[in-house]
């Protein structure tokens, strides 16, 4: 257990030593400060009476547009949490991948891997410790931002949206899925750049796959099954955005399939990475 914990701590510290992660931490802190101090809500008898954002004051009626009903506390909470969840999902994961992409190739580089694998640690445990370190570092950062926003908004308004916390797990889970692609390329090529290209490429492809229902009818008899095959095999990063926003809105998710099929991709990628890592000569 001690060697595993040691590896988790080394990876965790290594990721937090990156300037980009420090930057994400600072940005998260600024968001939390903004939500705490810049967004002032006047709550009268449990209802929203006014909003002041960076000093600009408005009443719920001012913010109502056309036929939409006046702004309620619930809608303000959902709006803030949705924006934060969406940003954490897209911007956060993209930057977190960028920050962590070099960790695994570094771990396998000459001078580092010998120090690690000469210890009484199996390769499986070494890989698991590394993955756990990266996941936990990203989870802490996500928890800091999203958990912080959730607590602040809930305390300020009295509106508690527990489903928002589930979206936090989705963000960490999808990071783990995309990091699997980085690791797979890392164990195969030891290239940070290729890991990033492939993981970002998968995100781009997921944008196309998200329009499966529109694109599929336009394809021929060969193209259609290939397209659906890719849809089921590759991570559905874009479609999972819908799950994150549904949860942030406090609604029940109608289909978890895009998330679970993505997890399956991640699991398979980690398994192949583990197999190659165990067989490799260093």
């Amino acid at each position: 257990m001690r060697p595993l914990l040691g590896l988790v701590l080394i990876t965790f510290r290594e990721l937090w030593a990156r300037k980009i992660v420090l930057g994400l931490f600072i940005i998260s802190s600024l968001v939390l400060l903004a939500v705490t101090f810049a967004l002032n809500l006047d709550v009268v008898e449990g209802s929203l009476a006014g909003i002041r954002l960076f000093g600009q004051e408005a009443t719920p009626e001012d913010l109502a547009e056309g036929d939409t009903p006046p702004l309620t506390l619930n809608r303000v909470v959902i709006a803030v949490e949705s924006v934060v969840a969406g940003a954490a999902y897209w911007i956060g994961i993209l930057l977190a991948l960028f920050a962590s992409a070099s960790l695994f190739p570094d771990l396998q580089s000459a001078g580092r891997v010998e120090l690690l694998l000469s210890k009484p640690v199996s390769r499986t445990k070494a890989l698991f410790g590394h993955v756990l370190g990266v996941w936990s570092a990203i989870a802490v950062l996500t928890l800091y931002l999203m958990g912080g926003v959730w607590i602040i908004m809930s305390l300020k308004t009295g509106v508690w949206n527990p489903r928002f916390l589930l979206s936090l797990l989705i963000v960490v889970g999808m990071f783990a899925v995309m990091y699997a692609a980085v690791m797979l390329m890392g164990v195969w090529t030891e290239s940070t750049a290729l890991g990033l290209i492939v993981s970002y490429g998968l995100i781009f492809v997921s944008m196309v796959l998200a329009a499966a229902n529109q694109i599929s009818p336009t394809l021929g008899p060969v193209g259609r099954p290939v397209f659906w095959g890719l849809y089921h095999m590759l991570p559905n990063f874009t479609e999972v955005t819908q799950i994150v926003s549904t949860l942030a809105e406090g609604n029940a998710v109608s289909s978890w399939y895009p998330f679970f099929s993505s997890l399956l991709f991640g699991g398979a990628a980690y398994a192949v990475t583990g197999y190659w890592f165990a067989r490799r000569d260093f």
Partner: protein
Amino acid sequence: MPALSVSSLSKTYRTGLLRRSTVQALDDVSLTVEEGAIFGLLGPNGAGKTTLVKILLGLVHPTSGTAHLFGRPAGDPAARQRIGFVPENHRFPGFFTAMQTLHAYGRLADVPRAERMDRILALLERLDLEGRGDSKVKTFSKGMLQRLGLAQALLSDPDLLFLDEPTGGVDPVGRRAIRDIVLELREEGKTIFLNSHLLSEVEKVCTQIAILREGSLVRQGSVEELTAVERVYDLVATPVPDALLDDPDTALQPAPDGAPPNPDLAQYRVHADDRTTLNAVLDRLRGADVEIESITPLRQSLEDYFIDVVDPPS
């Protein structure tokens, strides 16, 4: 039980896009290192030294043959419980301090915290790094990094220590310090496996050596055995009469570069085909009232021996 044993070990690397090209790094290598030995593995670049060490550490999988550490298969993590390793050009995370580095690698070596604290302080002092425990590793010189590498290898108090070019890039003072530590470790009964190009260092510390050439083990034995020149002896004695020197039966010549230990003595070289001839020469010398101070087998330097083995004169 030997500290390590290798039997019929071969390793072929496959290279190229389709992995069709092959490089034979090791070819049927067998050797044994007993506990308490300081073993030097020598060989020119590309001889297979690093591959052999990496197989023993479980970093490289052998193509055929077996390797064991204290009776356990080399790839078994439990086999590495009793070993320490200082890789050539090792890299520690630069953001760690020396103390944090040792704690981190101590955890990986499964050293309990209380024990770790005591050993880290003792090792920092022993390796002349006390006062630098809180300095970032990225500020360390090459010599300090080597000593820190040695400290992480010694943290688990290993019985067998692998040192891969431990003095590479280190200045003479640092080299001397590392050599002294190796000698201290020998006194403590540790087994040391030294992989080095610096033959003078190897000659000074190793009790046993092996030479690899193109993946094959070509020589193995003690430094004294291997560097001894067969049937040639250095003789220090009172001056030998010219008549005996000129006599072909005595097989005695003035030593070409000999400097006697004092002005009353002279140094000679004796060529004797067998023990009987050697004793006959000594009897004749005594018969001529020559007093013998010492007689020792002639040795060549390890470097000369190494060159003869890996690049024999055609």
